[in-house]
């Protein structure tokens, strides 16, 4: 892990790698967050009565709290921000947009989080429900370093509330020492999950991505609201697939790949790259981009309504958008950050496994953007039932 981690543990070389990884990983973070959630909510006091504090370029607060996806920020960028500009950063992580939204909804502007990182498709409803506060773009001049292809998307055409943080896609990784045939599509994934990889398969802990597997494999629109399609998806996922699943894990790159706990894992590309690089057996694992279609998602920097440290939040977003920091982030998280010419910079820097970070125009053409529809509640319902059925 990084050299600047402040925790010091004496252990032998192989154990220290595992410990270091474990201490920062999703398991630790998300469980700690979940357990601490009630306390955290209770401890946070609203800094304003009604309305959200808007940054105006005043002095930075001495704290900054970020609620984001697991393993999603380069530690060296975080610590450089603190040493250059002052605010101490506290990071919490979530596994799905639903989890993020539920915490913001429950806290009603007193979550205590400054920066949140929702996926683009969820932004319109989050704005409508008053969960996000408008950005003061005067404080974020570094947006000029962003590739315009990743700005002004449907969900926020003027980037009033959000700026691209990273984008990626969904596929799967399998253990070639167990699955000897070649898997290429979501149908292959579903077939292997019920055969060679039965009981050793994990899927993302995210309602949209779990149900996506079925829709993508069967050529059904991912944003379908048709009751027949949803019923068929539920029937298949809950009764046929779920009994073969071993885990619902949004970050298999954290442990499942390095420790070879699973044989087949649905995974986001950057997490797959982290896991394969850390596992030390790159030839054992095969990454497959979901096919015939899969998703493209874009996560965005945004500021939560009622953020207690809005100045620091703007300063941070501005800070990470510089080309150097954007590249450092890409190196660590393994996702395209949307910076101008970053592919060239990453190649020049000699980063490994860039085929899991950058995709060809033909590949991008197979990727679909999700949509939050009235079926959202139903998808969450299916996801819940799958979890219960997998444990039966």
């Amino acid at each position, binding site marked *: 892990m990084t050299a600047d981690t402040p925790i010091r543990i004496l252990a032998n070389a192989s154990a220290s790698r595992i410990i270091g990884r474990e201490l920062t990983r999703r398991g630790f973070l998300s469980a*700690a967050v979940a357990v601490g959630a009630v306390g955290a909510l209770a401890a946070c006091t609203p800094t304003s009565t009604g309305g959200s504090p808007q940054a105006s370029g005043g002095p930075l607060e001495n704290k900054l709290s970020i609620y984001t996806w697991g393993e999603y920020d380069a530690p060296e960028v975080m610590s450089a921000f603190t040493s250059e500009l002052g605010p101490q950063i506290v990071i919490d992580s979530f596994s799905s947009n639903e989890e993020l939204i539920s915490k913001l*909804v429950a806290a009603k502007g007193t979550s205590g989080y400054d920066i949140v990182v929702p996926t683009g498709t969820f932004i319109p409803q989050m704005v409508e429900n008053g969960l996000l506060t408008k950005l003061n773009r005067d404080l974020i001049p570094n947006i000029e370093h962003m590739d315009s292809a990743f700005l002004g998307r449907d969900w926020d055409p003027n980037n009033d509330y959000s700026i691209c943080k990273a984008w990626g896609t969904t596929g799967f990784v399998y253990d070639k020492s167990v699955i000897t045939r070649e898997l290429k599509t979501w149908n292959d994934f579903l077939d292997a999950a019920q055969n060679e990889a039965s009981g050793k398969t994990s899927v993302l802990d995210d309602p949209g991505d779990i149900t996506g597997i079925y829709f993508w494999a069967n050529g059904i629109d991912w944003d379908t609201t048709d009751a027949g399609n949803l019923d068929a998806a539920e029937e298949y996922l809950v009764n046929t697939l*779920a009994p073969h699943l*071993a885990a619902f894990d949004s970050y298999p790159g954290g442990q499942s790949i390095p*420790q070879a706990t699973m044989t087949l894992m649905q995974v986001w590309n950057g997490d797959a790259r982290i896991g394969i690089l850390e596992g030390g057996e790159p030839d054992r694992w095969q990454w497959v981009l979901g096919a015939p279609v899969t998703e493209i998602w874009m996560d965005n920097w945004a500021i939560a309504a009622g953020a207690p440290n809005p100045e620091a939040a703007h300063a941070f977003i501005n800070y990470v958008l510089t080309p150097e920091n954007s590249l450092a982030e890409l190196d660590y998280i393994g996702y395209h950050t949307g910076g101008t010419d970053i592919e060239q910079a990453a190649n020049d820097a000699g980063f490994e496994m860039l085929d899991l970070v950058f995709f060809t125009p033909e590949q991008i053409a197979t990727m679909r953007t999700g949509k939050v529809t009235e079926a*959202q509640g139903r998808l969450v319902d299916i996801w819940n039932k799958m979890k*219960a059925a997998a*444990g039966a």
Partner: protein
Amino acid sequence: MRSPRFALAIPAWAWLVLFFVVPVGYVIWFSFGYKPGIFGTHANDVLSFDRYVEALSPTFFQTFLNTLWVGLAGTALCLLIAFPVVYWMAVKVSPSKRGLLIALVMIPFWTNFLVRTIGWQVILAPEGWLSTGLNTIGVLDGPLEILYTRTAVLIGVVYNYLPLMILPLFVAFDRVGAPLREASKDLGAGPIATLARVTIPLARPGIIAGVLLVFIPLMGDYITATVLGGAKGNMVGQLVASQFQTAQNWALGSAMAVLLMLVIALSVAIGAVILWILSLPFRSAHRLVLGPES
């Protein structure tokens, strides 16, 4: 002077009301409501038992059964492991060394619960050191397939809750004291009879306390199952958490939480009745009546 005595109890009552009665009241109230839409968590304008019906549907009911199984098996294993250890600590070991042994039991307990559980994740991984070691000495052929099963959860909960069983048992055994055992021996009882007729009956409150201290929190455990259980070792705690955190369905989550409380209360009540029935013949046979002979 009644009022000062009452005044002393006010903090305790306030604590109980504010942090137990009110929150549980809210949970019960929410459980009769419903989820109004994607961005609403609960609404109570229409009251019904529908959430309970939903929570008891076959899909979720299975998780309740699994949880009860882990709860009962985990508590039984804790008792089986703790009993001989505590007996040895309280009876066989010299009193000067007992403090040290208690400290050894307690020190791991002071380590963060989550870190200890994640430690087991590393140990039980199919290519972790335990798996490799068992393969090397030939006990096992092929990787250890325990992680992300109910067995892993069981191992985790026994490890995590064992100190909660050992401590009350130790206090109870320690309190029985050597003089009573010696008296029993003087009166002709062998070691087994002494254990069955003197030590265990006198230590019974400690045993019951240990069982309750382990069983109740274990049934609501969420961390161990999340870290070690994967999809197969699902427990109700996770269902409740996912209803609140991800599904944002506070009504259904509350109904599940209330059902979990009922399951726990019912299990404890059934256990108490069984214990009472079992002790009936024993009690009448050994009643000692002290008083003037008539």
